[in-house]
């Protein structure tokens, strides 16, 4: 039955959480703590020299890891983080023990995220660098407006199925969809409007795709040896993170979607 004992009915309390420190690890109990105080505590712990912050009892607190810079920093989350996790993040690693909500890795610059569950909509919106690995399914508009510049190439690897608008308006980076840990076996690997408006980057789908579900800006190819070279380290890392059989994942052919035009709206908005 329903439980109501997890906290005061008023919702979050705007007080600083208790931070316990052991070596270079800081542990914070996030139970019922408002997102602002929670995120101040996370930043405070890093400022005090902690390298790892463990967040317990997280439920719905927004903006965790936002804008934090530092390659060797790590945030471990127990519970469900709120929206816009790791927005503008620049370097750290975030690991969740369960699912994440909408807007993970919004405009993220660098770093790595491992989500041990499903992720919601608009994952990696406008992402500019770093890597996101999701164990299971992802929602709508994953990788929308993802972009790349020189050696800054964002990567998202999703372990389950994806819903509509996968890679919409994608301008750069690599999107991988594996269809391994799916919640609903009867649903297609990827929803309609995949890659619609895409004008850069590449999408790899493990298996086949219904051409009518693919945006008209995309060309559909079978991944070749060169592509597998790109895929190998990504899939390897995904398998290592979530305990899957690497050879088995790569045993099936991948479909590759790339844009056929670099400027699909050139005629619309600017004289040629």
């Amino acid at each position: 039955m329903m439980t109501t004992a997890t906290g005061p009915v008023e919702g979050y309390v705007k007080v600083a959480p208790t931070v316990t420190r052991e070596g270079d690890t800081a542990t914070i109990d996030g139970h019922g703590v408002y997102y602002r105080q929670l995120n101040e505590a996370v930043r405070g712990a890093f400022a005090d020299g902690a390298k790892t912050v463990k967040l317990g009892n997280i439920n719905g607190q927004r903006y965790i890891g936002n804008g934090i810079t530092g390659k060797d920093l790590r945030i471990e989350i127990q519970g469900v983080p709120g929206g816009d996790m790791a927005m503008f993040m620049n370097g750290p690693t975030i690991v969740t023990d369960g699912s994440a909500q909408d807007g993970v890795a919004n405009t993220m610059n660098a770093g790595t995220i491992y989500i041990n569950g499903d992720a919601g909509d608009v994952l990696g919106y406008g992402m500019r660098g770093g890597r996101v690995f999701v164990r299971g399914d992802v929602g709508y508009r994953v990788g929308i407006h993802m972009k790349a510049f020189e050696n800054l190439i964002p990567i998202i690897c999703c372990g389950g199925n994806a819903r509509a608008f996968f890679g919409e308006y994608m301008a750069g980076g690599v999107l991988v969809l594996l269809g391994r840990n799916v919640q609903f076996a009867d649903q297609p690997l990827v929803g309609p409007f995949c890659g619609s408006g895409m004008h850069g980057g590449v999408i790899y789908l493990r298996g086949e795709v219904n051409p009518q579900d693919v945006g008209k800006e995309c060309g559909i190819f079978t991944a070749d040896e060169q592509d597998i070279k790109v895929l190998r380290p990504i899939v390897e890392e995904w398998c290592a993170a979530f305990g899957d059989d690497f050879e088995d994942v790569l045993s099936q052919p991948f479909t590759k979607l790339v844009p056929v035009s670099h400027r699909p709206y050139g005629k619309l908005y600017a004289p040629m």
Partner: protein
Amino acid sequence: MTTPMRPAYSQESPFKIHGGCGLVGICDESGTRFSGSVAIEAMAVQHDRGNGLGGGFAGYGIYPEFPDHFAFHMMYHDLQAKEEAEKLFDEYFQVDLAEPMPTRPVKGITDAPLLWRYFLQPYPAKLELSELTPEDYVVHVVMLINSTIDGAFVASSGKNMGAFKGVGYPEQIGHYFLLEEYEGHTWVGHNRFPTNTPGWWGGAHPFTLLDWSIVHNGEISSYGINSRYLEQFGYKCTLGTDTEVAAYLFDLLLRRHKLPLALACKALASPLWEEIDRMGPEEAALMTSLRAVYGPALLNGPFAIVLGFNGGMVALNDRIKLRPLVAARKGSVLCVASEESAIRQIISAPDAVWAPKAGEPVIARIKGMDWPIHGDLHLAPSEISCAVTGVEASCEIVEVA
């Protein structure tokens, strides 16, 4: 002495704020009733989805002592409005109980209107004379009050249910109305972030008519055509919030036109023409007719809604999923919310958590209660075509075990 000028309530908001709303719907399909504090708690973790300009709840099964009375929750700006509305009640109904809504002072809740509730039954003779069903009779009075009595608004008018709403955060509003003292089998909750219309007490969600209650996250850009369409059937949109049309559309499609739920949802969130082109001939014909007949009922714009009623609950997204919606189940309890955290706050270790597909309803149905909707989901096109083609014989009500 002259009466001071009374302010007009149909004011446009002087500014526009962009944001989202939060919602929750919880239904125990076993019919077990639970405290309104559960709904408050689910809304409290979605605090920042609103901005304090509107919060509200609707509970079902909350008035077991008056199961067959129409429970009117009223908002009055002043005593004159109250007197005028009560005169109307006396004219149309036998008033078996009239009392102020129980409230408690809550920090942050100010400028509350006069809040009263009434338990009413239509006068049999008057009802017969009107040649209306009791439900249409009640709808007539609701529209009459909302459109002709300045400063009087009906917050809810169903049986064994009620809406509790106002300006504030939902957890404040919930406390204000002492919701922990009510028990219901179904609750819907809402946290408002007004974008296009003013944040005022009558404009908070849920919007209700009879047993239907709607909470909505999104904006209905087809409000104009929807409200003009509804006017033809006697519905008057007076509350200044787009969601009002969704409540009346469900009443029109489900109660009056007796559309099966699947079809009503397809009328509001219809398949794209592109998708219809790919359907088989029978389904394509049905969807084409549906779009032709109910074109003005199409809800354009992003939305996630929860429809509550006596018998269950339906949650629905727009066709391309422009607003968040998560669902979960544990045993007989079905819960939907804008965020997974809201569900996890009230249900520990759910059996399943999933993201519903865009345009496909999530349905809770209470065992042993009448299902107020004609037919059900998962019907073949031929089985549900009656409402569109008008061939009554082709209609079958399919029972769900």
